[in-house]
């Protein structure tokens, strides 16, 4: 019997990714915004060691809805990282994070979130992580990589040639979209979303995301640096 050989992996690169973390508060922290200076100072103090400065702080106050009122902390160098604090939630967005920097990122965001929870007296109701990434395939057409995810019957729903078979899967607390990238040739656009309980730590959220990404690469037969 010939030895089993693993199917050849498709070389892949992630040229662009965007992570979004959201913590939804149990109740709006209206009182904390009564004197926002204290809250802003606490968050800025927590973030300053990580490259955030006063110049990167914006107040979005000209809104009709109180829920849209927010203070945005942007890191200037390197750019691509921001924390938006509103009355009902805090949202962190980060571009092109790599797993080698995960500990560093978790440490700075933990510092900021602790400042918000303590100074703003916020209580977290739920946490969500969304990861969107463009994955460029180097050695195989993207259509060939995703075609086997769908039952052939699916291809008969509409007539004509299928240009790209993508999928959307909804689970109880998570979802994934695999689409053709609009930005990168022969690329996939993947969005993974997962809801987490309030008590989960950022470390646990990161581990869950890493596992999801690894599983994505395994299922698609991809090889590359996440």
């Amino acid at each position, binding site marked *: 019997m010939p030895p089993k050989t693993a199917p050849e992996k498709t070389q892949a*690169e992630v*040229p*662009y990714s*965007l992570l*979004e973390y*959201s913590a*939804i508060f149990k109740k*709006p922290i209206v009182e904390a915004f009564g004197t926002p200076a204290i809250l802003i100072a606490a968050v800025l103090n927590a973030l300053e060691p990580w490259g955030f400065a006063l110049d990167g702080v914006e107040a979005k106050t000209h809104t009709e809805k109180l*829920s849209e009122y927010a203070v945005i902390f942007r890191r200037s160098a390197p750019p691509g990282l921001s924390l*938006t604090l509103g009355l*009902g*939630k805090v*949202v962190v*967005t980060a*571009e092109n994070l790599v797993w080698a920097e995960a500990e560093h990122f978790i440490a700075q965001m933990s510092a900021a979130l602790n400042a918000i929870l303590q100074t703003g007296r916020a209580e977290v109701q*739920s946490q*969500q992580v*969304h990861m*969107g990434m*463009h994955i*460029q*395939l*180097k*050695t*195989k*057409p993207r*259509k060939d990589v995703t075609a086997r995810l769908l039952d052939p019957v699916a291809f008969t729903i509409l007539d004509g040639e299928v*240009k*790209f*078979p*993508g999928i*959307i899967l*909804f689970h109880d*607390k998570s*979802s994934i*979209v695999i*689409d*053709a*990238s*609009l*930005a*990168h*040739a*022969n690329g996939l*656009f993947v*969005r993974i*979303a997962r*809801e987490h309980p309030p008590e989960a730590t950022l470390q646990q959220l990161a581990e869950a995301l890493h596992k999801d990404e690894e599983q994505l690469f395994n299922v698609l037969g991809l090889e590359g640096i996440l």
Partner: protein
Amino acid sequence: MSALAQLAHIEQPRVPPPYGAPPKGIWPGEQPTSQRKRPRPAGAFEDIYGQRVKWEAPSDSGIKGLEDAYVFEDRSAVAAFIGENRLRGLLLQARGPLAAAFGEAAVKTLRLVRDDEGFRTLFCLVMVPGEMQEARRALRLFDQQWWVDGCGQAAGKLNFDFELV
């Protein structure tokens, strides 16, 4: 482009107010269901696919417009070479003739190749799943219809070929 990608322009359901209206189905008005609405992103990912947001990823201006047409092998080195040798314009122009000869769906990879004397050339390699004869015919068509006139501008720094897959 994929069907899914094209759905991105369809108006997406709005993010529900955090403490308000009852949840609705994913496609309002089309799914009469009381199914609980999925967790929705709060910030950058405002539509269900999230791809409209930031899909124009910041990139080196020297390769602007090339990212969605070519696969980059060794991204930074290829981007630098394109910039140094001002090949962006030619590569932009080549998209149409390449599609005409090899088909819209053909994957085109940009790869830097160094010869024995150290001279570097950027190769655009078109992945062809068919047979050798078919690939040669397509390349000949491309050469005759466009590259013969354009190769002078490349000064030997750019070439086109195919790779059977």
